[in-house]
C-alpha cells in the first residue's frame, strides 16, 4: 500500500460518509482548478470542469483501490474531464478551441484579483499579468498531449513518475513529450513576445 495522507478520508468516504469528502475537496480543489484552467484556458469553464471532476470522483470513489495515490487518481479525472470539455467545445460552432484569455485583457477572475491585491507595484503587475497571459495563450496553442505534460511538470511540479501514473504513459514518452512541449512553447513565446 502506498503511503497516502488522503487514504484515511478516502476509506471513510468509501464507507458512505460523504462529510469526509469535504476534507479531500479542501485539500485538492486549488490544484484541480489550476490544472483544469491551464488545460481549458478559461477560468469559468475550469470551475465547471473541476466541479464535475469532483462529483465524478465521489461517485466512483468505491472503485479506487489505492494502487496509486488518491491525488494521482483525482488529477487524472481532472485532466480527462478537461480534455473532454475541450472536445465538446471544439464541436460547438463559433468556439475557438485554443481560445485562452486574450493577452492584456483584464479578466475579472478571483485569482487574478487576489494576485493583484498582494503585489506592491501596479506597473510590474500589468507587465507580469501580460506575460502570464502570453504564456497561457501559448500553452493553450500547444497540442493537448504536450499541454498536459507541460502543465503537470512545469506548472504543477509533478515528478516524472507521477506524470506517468496520471497520464498512464511510459517514462520515455513523458520525457520526449515534455522536451517537445518546452521547445514548442519557447518558439511560440519568441513569436509573441520577441526576445525572451
Amino acid at each position, binding site marked *: 500500500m502506498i503511503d497516502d495522507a488522503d487514504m484515511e478520508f478516502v476509506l471513510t468516504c468509501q464507507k*458512505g460518509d*460523504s462529510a469526509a*469528502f*469535504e476534507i479531500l*475537496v*479542501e485539500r485538492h*480543489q*486549488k490544484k484541480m*482548478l*489550476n490544472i483544469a*484552467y*491551464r488545460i481549458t484556458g478559461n*477560468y469559468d469553464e*475550469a*470551475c465547471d470542469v*473541476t*466541479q464535475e471532476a*469532483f*462529483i465524478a470522483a*465521489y*461517485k466512483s470513489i468505491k472503485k479506487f483501490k489505492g494502487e496509486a495515490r488518491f491525488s494521482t487518481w483525482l488529477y487524472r479525472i481532472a485532466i480527462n474531464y478537461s480534455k473532454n470539455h475541450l472536445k465538446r467545445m471544439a464541436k460547438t460552432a463559433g468556439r475557438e478551441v485554443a481560445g485562452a484569455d486574450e493577452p492584456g485583457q483584464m479578466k475579472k*477572475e*478571483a*485569482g*487574478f484579483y*487576489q*494576485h493583484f491585491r498582494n503585489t506592491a507595484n501596479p506597473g510590474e503587475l500589468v507587465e*507580469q499579468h501580460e*506575460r*502570464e497571459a502570453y*504564456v*497561457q495563450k501559448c*500553452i493553450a496553442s500547444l497540442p493537448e498531449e504536450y499541454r498536459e505534460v*507541460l502543465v503537470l*511538470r*512545469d*506548472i504543477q*511540479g509533478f515528478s*516524472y513518475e507521477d506524470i506517468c501514473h496520471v497520464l498512464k504513459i511510459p517514462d520515455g514518452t513523458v*520525457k*520526449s513529450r*515534455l*522536451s*517537445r512541449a*518546452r*521547445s514548442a*512553447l*519557447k518558439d511560440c*513565446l*519568441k513569436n509573441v513576445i520577441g526576445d*525572451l
Partner: protein
Amino acid sequence: MKNCKDMGNKISLYLDDVLSAEDKRKLEEHLKACPKCREALADMQKVKAMTRELSELEPPPWFKQKIMAQVREEAQKKSFTEKWFYPLRIKIPVQVFAAIFIVVIAVYVYRAGNEQFREVMPPVATAPLTQEQKEEPAAAEYEPAEIAAPPAYRTTDEEKVVAGSIISDKQDYARQLSRKESNADAETPEVKSRSLQAVMEKDVSSAQMKQESHIIVLRVSDIDSAAAHLEKILAEYNASRASKQSTDGKVVFRAEIGKENLKDFIQKLKTLGVIENKVSADVDALEQIPVVIEIQDQ
C-alpha cells in the same frame, strides 16, 4: 552528442537533472563548444521559469460549498437507492411490505382456490347413519398401534372368519393403511393421484352401498346358533366382503350376495327365524347386492 539536433531532448532532461552522469558530461562538453545550444539551453531555462512563475488561481468563493452541495445531493440519491433497494440492509421497509403483500395474496389465492375446489367436488352423500359409520371412530382409536405393528394385529373373539374370502373390517383397514404407509415414499405423484382417486371412488361406492343395502332384521330364539347357521349360508351363497360384528344383544353380518341368489338367500334366512325387512333398496343396477343382517332376540 553528434549534432545539435540531438541536443533538444537532452537539454530538457538536463534542466530537470534527470540525465545519466555520462550523458550529462557529454552535453556539458558540447555546450562549451556550441553557442547555439547554449542559447537554446538559456531560452529553455527562461521558458521553464516563466511557466513556474505563473500565478496560481484561487478557487472562487463558496467553491467547496458548491461542490459539497452536489456531493450531498449525490449521497442522498445513493442512500435513497441503498435504503430502499440494497438487499443487505435489514431496516428496509420495502422488503417487509413486499413480504406482507405476498402473504396476503397467497392467502387470498388459497381461499379462492378452496372455494373453486368445493364447487367442483360432488355433494356429500346424505345417507342415514348406519352402525358401521357409528363404529368408525372407535376403530380409529386403535389404528396407530395396529399400523405400527401390523403382523401383531389380533382379532377379537367376535371377529371370526366366516368364509375363505372373509376378512374382518379392522384387519382390512389396518392392512390397507400399513400398505399405504410402506408404499408412501415410493409412490410417484401419478400413483398417489390414482390411489387418491381410488379412495374417493371407494368412499362414493361405500355411500352408495349404505343407501342401497338390504337391511334385514332376523329375530331368532338362539342368536349364537343362528349366527353359526348364517355363516354357513353365507358361505353357501358365495357371499363376498362378508364381516361379522357382535354388539349388545345382536350380531350384525355384512356381505354382498349375487343378485340372482338374493331371493333364495332370503328364503334360507326364513328358516332361521322371523324376518323383518327394514330397508329394501333399489338393487336393479347392482350385480352384487350389499346385505346387512341383524340377528336379534325374539
